[in-house]
Each structure stands twice: as C-alpha cells, then as structure tokens.
C-alpha cells in the first residue's frame, strides 16, 4: 500500500476503489489517503501508517481539531467507502 497527502483536485482523479483510507483536512482542501495505486503528484509520501500517523500528530492543526492526530487505530479501522463520500 502507498501512503500520501494529495490535493482535492488530484484526489478526484484517482480510482476510488483502490483507496482503503481517506481523511480530509479541516479546510477540506487536502486528503490523506492510503491506496494501492502509485500517485506521483502527491504533496507528501509516507513509508507506512506509523509515519503517516506521526505526521498528523506533529501537524495536527491542519488535520484534527482536538490537538491530537490521526491514530494508527483510526487509519486501520476507518475503511474508505466511495459511495459514502460526498
């Protein structure tokens, strides 16, 4: 799997069925994704869920509003479902 931050515009071009996790930024302009596809036009790339989670804790102001971050638990358990993404 591949771990990225992408813009909303890039996200809209991706194959949703290959995405297993998605988390929108607070301002809804960016998305954290885990996908089986390779996305070269990413803003950030991470080695695994741990480094991705660590990033959100360090840069939480853009991603969560409670001063914490996106935990590995959330990454693992919150399955992306394309038909429920508005």
């Amino acid at each position, binding site marked *: 799997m591949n771990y990225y931050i992408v813009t909303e515009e890039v996200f809209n071009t991706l194959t949703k069925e290959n995405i297993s996790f998605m*988390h*929108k*930024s*607070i301002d809804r302009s960016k998305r954290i994704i885990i996908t089986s596809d390779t996305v070269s036009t990413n803003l950030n790339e991470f080695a695994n869920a741990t480094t991705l989670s660590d990033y959100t804790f360090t840069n939480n102001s853009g*991603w*969560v*509003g*409670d*001063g*914490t971050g*996106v935990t590995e*638990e*959330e990454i693992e*358990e*919150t*399955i992306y*479902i394309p*038909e*429920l993404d*508005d």
Partner: protein
Amino acid sequence: MGTTSKITGSLATAISKVSGTVISGLANIMGQTISLFTNANSAAKSLTTGTAQAIYVTDSNSMGVEWDADDDFSISFWIKPGWDLGLNTNIHLFSMTDAGGAVNNGTFRIWYDDTNNRLNVQWRSGGSHRHHNFWTFHSNSGKYAPAYAAAGLGTTYWNSGNRGNVGDDDYTLITFCKGTLNSAADTNIDMYWNGTTLGTSHYTSGNHTGTPDMGNNDKQIFIGSSSWSPYQKSGNNDETKFDGVTMWNKKLTAGEVSELWNSGTPINATTHSAAAELKGYWEFESDGTATVGENMTINGNSNIEAR
C-alpha cells in the same frame, strides 16, 4: 406551612409535605398523577482533552455492567452536540475500558466519526480481536435511507449547527442495544436515533477481526471522551452536553426505547418498564451522583449546566 385543610391557587412545587407525608411518597392527589421528576440540568463536557477534564466513573464491581462479549446490554444517553466541522476527528460519546486499562483492554465504545458522518460501535480485547459496525446519515438511498430519515440531518454532517431531529431542548437520544451473540452483525445489534431505529448497519455480518474476549472486569466509564489516554474531547465550538445516561442489563426492545424516548421528553428511568434491568443511571441534575450505580466524577472545566 402549617396544617392546611384546603389548598387553592398554590403551586404544587411549593409544597414539601402533605399531612406529614413526604410528597415523594404520594402517587396522586384527587386522581391526578404527581410527577416530581425534574430535568433542568445536564453534564457539559469540557473543551479540553485529558483525564483532568473528564466525566467518568470507575466501577468497583457492584454496578453489574462488567459485561462480557456474549452478554446482552444497552447504552442510552441524551446528547446536545457542541462540535463543529473543525473538530474533524473521532468523537467518543460513550466509552468504557477495563479499570486502569488501555484501548485494547475490554473496551466498548460508541463514537461519531466527524470526518465521515458515521456513528460507530465497537468492542475489543486486542488489536486483532475487535468487532465493529456503523451507521451513516447523509445517504438517502438503499439500506442507508432509514438512518437518513431517523436523524433528519440531511446531507450536512451532524454538528452543533445541524442537530437534526431532536427532542426537548435540542437533545437527541442515542441508544445502542446488543444481543447475546459476540457479534456486530446487524441481526445482533440495533442503534436508535431518538425512538427510531437507524435501520440496517453498514456491515450486515459485522466488521470482525478475531474474537474479542471482554471478561467481566471492573470498568472505567467515560462520557464525552475516550476511556483511555489521551481522553479526547467531544466539543470544540461549544461544550457537548450529556444527560440521562443509562446502562441496561438487557437488549432493549424497540418499544422499550420508544418508552425511554417519550416523544422527546426525558423520563425518570427508574419508572421505565425495564427498570429492573437498569444498572447505571446518571441524571446530572446537581452533580455526578448516580441514581442507579456508582457516582461519576466531573472534573476540571466539565460541569453541570442548564440544559
């Protein structure tokens, strides 16, 4: 008040005794039912993370809520959301974990995923032993339509600016009911918004990893935050308020949930038809004193406020 032979034009609330009898011992006067239940206040969860701001109780094994994964039970609470779209995280509404434990120690939790508009439930005894399911509100099609209708949120997510279908004082009654199977399959669990079922859960057979073994340990029960570190918060725009939290030692029926909902006006849960199975009840009228069960601690900036 001295001995009075007649009362005319006096407010009943000003009378504490009638002929030396405490008024709470009276069922009716002149055929009129007396209701002394008041529900003016609620518990407001602090906007801050951490145990120092938490609303919680540490069960000392006398409450009867030390449920294993194959026990039937129900959790219900009134909630008035204080979060807005900026919280953007998992908001724990009710969570309990083995006393002194971490997320994988006999945890049962109900949380709202603010980023995906999902009301989740899960119980777990390990990272590879967990059962999970959820309902979502913004899709008015197929199996999601009942939740869309029950919540009344429309296509906008649940938050302090969009509370959907509510009862008195803009509170919603959330009730989760679990059967005797160690399974999050739709046939074993029900979730209600006010008195209405949310319908079929997303995972018809449950989202299962391994087999949770919850044991029957003492629990630490948290309202408005996770029950393990960092004890996350449940509001950012305003404090999220909780009221009438109840824990039942049975899977409540739809009729029993409707009775609890009472068309949006909270009832005294000790008068509910299933009250014999009521194991925890917090009214939050003046503090965290339990009407049934053990008292809650209300820490830091969390406090009792008018509904």
